[in-house]
């Protein structure tokens, strides 16, 4: 038993019932072979990044399932023989099962063209590792009064070094030797 994910594109020009039939056909095929479907995701119709067989849009659906590897050739044969499957991809799945929240997120972005800006998923969650530098117990044995350590502020010093005075650039005379000198007063 291994965990796989199969994603496929169905021709969206068929009516909804036909699309639904194609999707359930894949699910049935997996189940008939003793597989167990863990996650079903109908992403919906979305624009293809490039045309496939003259199509601009495709209906995406995806299954995550546990099954024996014997189901894979059957699945592939099914995809190849049936006309409406435009493209398919079956991979070993090694990620976590998607939560329902992610699912809705994905569908929301796919159905409409780029909705309102969602909060970036990789916006750093600011795991501020505040290393509390709490000193251990003050050593009472020391009679010496310690001087307060004056720490230099840890601000990055970005003060640019005062650059050495540049050699005065030789003011390039606007001589254009290639061009015919239309202002040829100087050459007199």
């Amino acid at each position, binding site marked *: 038993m291994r965990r796989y994910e199969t*994603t496929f*594109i169905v021709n969206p020009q068929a009516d909804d019932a036909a699309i639904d039939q194609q999707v359930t056909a894949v699910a049935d095929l997996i189940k008939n072979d003793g597989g167990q479907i863990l996650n079903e995701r109908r*992403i919906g119709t979305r624009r*293809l*990044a*490039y045309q*496939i067989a003259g199509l601009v849009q*495709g209906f*995406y659906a*995806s299954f995550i399932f546990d099954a024996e590897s014997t189901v894979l050739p059957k699945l592939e044969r099914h995809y190849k023989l049936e006309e409406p499957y435009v*493209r*398919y*991809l079956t*991979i070993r799945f*090694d*990620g*976590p099962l*998607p939560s329902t929240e992610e699912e809705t997120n*994905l569908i929301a*972005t796919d159905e409409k063209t780029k909705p309102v800006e*969602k909060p970036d*998923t*990789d916006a*750093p*969650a600011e795991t501020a590792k505040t290393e509390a530098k709490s000193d251990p117990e003050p050593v009472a044995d020391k009679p010496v009064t310690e001087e307060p350590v004056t720490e230099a502020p840890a601000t*990055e010093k970005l003060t640019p070094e005062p650059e050495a005075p540049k050699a005065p650039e030789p003011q390039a005379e606007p001589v254009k030797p290639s061009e015919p000198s239309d202002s040829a007063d100087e050459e007199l």
Partner: protein
Amino acid sequence: MREYGGRKRKKVCRFCENKINYIDFKDDRILRRFVTDRGKIVPRRISGNCAKHQRKLTTAIKRARHIAIMAFESESFR
């Protein structure tokens, strides 16, 4: 931030930072950040990804291209 030669700053892998371990090839919002305008995968030295995540990202982008979620080549250059 470490500085090299006073210019470059050490980049941090965004996936490590956010503790993302699985990169879904269907999530083009994330993948799109790591390709150029033309659709090429951004190299590690630019994006700052670690080796592990760059490998996963590359696989995910290639899968996404196969299933027409991402383009092999950008539209404007077709």
